[in-house]
């Protein structure tokens, strides 16, 4: 092994990499456990990429063949069922891990100066994950996904000014058809992965350049001269990360074996809308809120107002590091903590209520 390393070193000069590996450390404090969520999110993203590539070998993106090809994958291809179920479950766990990662960074105020761009890139990555989820949901071309996409793209039509062109762009026409499927496929396997890979690279680069953020209290103690203990990233921290990944893999395997993702019936545009149409769980809070809004509020269409509200909330989320001036000075910012708690509570309650209401 050392001979191989020497051989590569002689040609590429690995001194910089070696130095980085030796020097990189992870701060040790009471909240260090939350760091694992970032690594877990990245790991699940890699699982998505690997399982997605395997699915691509058999998937056929046309309204005539998509459903049949997924049916073929899960019933005829050796371990196809496992790959498809891991892809589906991992997608959901990935969003959950990303949410957890974002909220942990939020509550630890890890976005504060100089890590504003790390936060912004992370929030955009979360939005991209939603895009992956939305576009991937349609790909099996089954009844539920077909009608849910109809509802979802219809909601995009409520965006002020650009709504109708945006909806037509997403659908590839006036309605959800085979053209929508081709479009969603291209978005899911080419456009989003390209943007996502760049953004993940950028996000990781920021993390490496700035190191892990520490909580405000620890930062203040550090300023007073206290030395915050560090754990070597290689191999101490990475081994712990791998341990978490193994638990995730075991969980994924158990979910795939015991709760496989149902394929349902093939989409039929002329069939009546089946009962229980609802989006994936991470869109449920938004979906249910829009459903609860009255048809008109102060003369503005309720759905349009809701979309505007969520757009504004997304913009605030991106701008959090620039709005929380106290945190950027390493001072506690309880207002933002309360705001985060309210948002988290709203998401949990509306997701649960939305799940049982639909």
């Amino acid at each position, binding site marked *: 092994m050392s001979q191989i390393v020497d051989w590569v070193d002689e040609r590429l000069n690995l001194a910089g990499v070696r130095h980085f590996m030796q020097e990189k450390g992870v701060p040790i404090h009471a909240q260090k456990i939350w760091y694992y969520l970032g690594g877990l999110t990245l790991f699940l993203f890699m699982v998505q990429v690997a399982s997605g590539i395997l699915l691509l070998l058999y998937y056929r993106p046309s309204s005539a063949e998509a459903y049949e090809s997924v049916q073929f994958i899960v*019933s005829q291809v050796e371990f196809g*069922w496992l790959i498809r179920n891991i892809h589906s479950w991992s997608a959901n766990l990935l969003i959950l891990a990303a949410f957890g990662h974002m909220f942990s960074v939020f509550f630890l105020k890890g976005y504060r100066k100089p890590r504003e761009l790390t936060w912004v890139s992370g929030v955009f990555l979360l939005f991209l994950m939603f895009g992956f989820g939305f576009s991937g949901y349609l790909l099996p071309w089954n009844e539920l996904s077909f009608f849910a996409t109809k509802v979802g793209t219809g909601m995009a039509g409520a965006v002020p000014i650009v709504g109708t062109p945006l909806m037509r762009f997403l659908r590839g026409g006036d309605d959800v058809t085979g053209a929508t499927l081709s479009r969603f496929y291209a978005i899911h396997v080419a456009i989003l992965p390209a943007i996502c890979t760049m953004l993940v690279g950028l996000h990781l680069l920021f993390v490496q350049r700035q190191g892990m953020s520490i909580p405000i209290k620890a930062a203040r103690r550090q300023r007073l001269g206290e030395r915050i203990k560090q754990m070597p990233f290689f*191999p*101490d921290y990475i081994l712990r990360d791998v341990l978490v990944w*193994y638990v995730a893999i*075991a969980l994924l*395997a158990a979910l795939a*074996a015991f*709760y*496989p993702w149902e394929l349902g019936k093939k989409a039929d545009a002329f069939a009546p809308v089946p009962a229980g149409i609802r989006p994936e769980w991470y869109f449920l809070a938004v979906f249910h809120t829009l459903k609860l809004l009255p048809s008109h509020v102060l003369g503005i269409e309720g759905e349009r107002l809701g979309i505007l509200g969520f757009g504004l909330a997304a913009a605030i989320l991106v701008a959090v590091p620039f709005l929380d001036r106290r945190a950027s000075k390493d001072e506690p910012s309880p207002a933002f903590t309360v705001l985060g708690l309210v948002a988290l509570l709203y998401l949990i309650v509306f997701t649960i209520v939305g799940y049982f209401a639909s």
Partner: protein
Amino acid sequence: MTGLTATAAAAVLGAGLVLLSPRWAAAQAATSNNCATCHAKLSDARLKSPPQAVAGDVHDKAGVHCADCHGGNPAATDATAAHDPAHGYRGKPSGATICATCHVLLADKFKTSVHAQIFEKACVECHGNHGIKPPSDALLGTSKEALCTSCHSEKDDPGFTAANQMRASIDRLRQGIDAGSGLIARVKNAGIEVGDQELALTEARTRLVLARTEVHAFNPAALDVVVNDGMKIVAGVNQGGNRGVAELAYRRRGLFVFLALTLLFVVALVFKIRDLDRTRK
């Protein structure tokens, strides 16, 4: 002509055209059924009772009414107009022909049967004409509800044996389909893809419908051909279902092996991490 007069004239003309339209007349005929209203007032029980018997029977529920079999004009309010032959009134139709107007396949099968030669009223002999009960497998065989026993009540009667045989064949296919459906539903709930088996079950159900049609030829051997075809499909479904059950067991075994290996690796990692921590101290 003022504008108002022109509008009124157009409205009258339009209304007249609508009233004269054959489509409007047909729609009226379909919605007005005066047969029951008039016949309820008659004193002759033979004429009074049929509309009462028909109310809520299988034909009534299917939207088949008096005029569909007897002809005439159900929208008319007097007897002469209602029973006008120009409106297709045919009075009491022949059971041998009128049922065949809709039940073509069943009538074709019946024509080939021994009963066709001896049943004067054809279908009516078993099913009646007014107040017809929904068809069910219980009508076939030698049980209490079965129709066959009204003629074939003796055990040494070949008709009794044939009725029993046919009922057993129909039951065999129906129970096979039910069992297959249960197996496929169970496997599907566990996440195994069974689209092909579900399609095959639809095909098997079609065979059951065909078998129920074949019953009207009253030929147990011919019925068995259709039933056996259905049973072959059911056997394929069961084979697929059993493959699914085996696949499930295989997946569960594989999962437990994988989890055991993962646990082993995790434990090894924990020891390694502890060892590292001790070294650091």
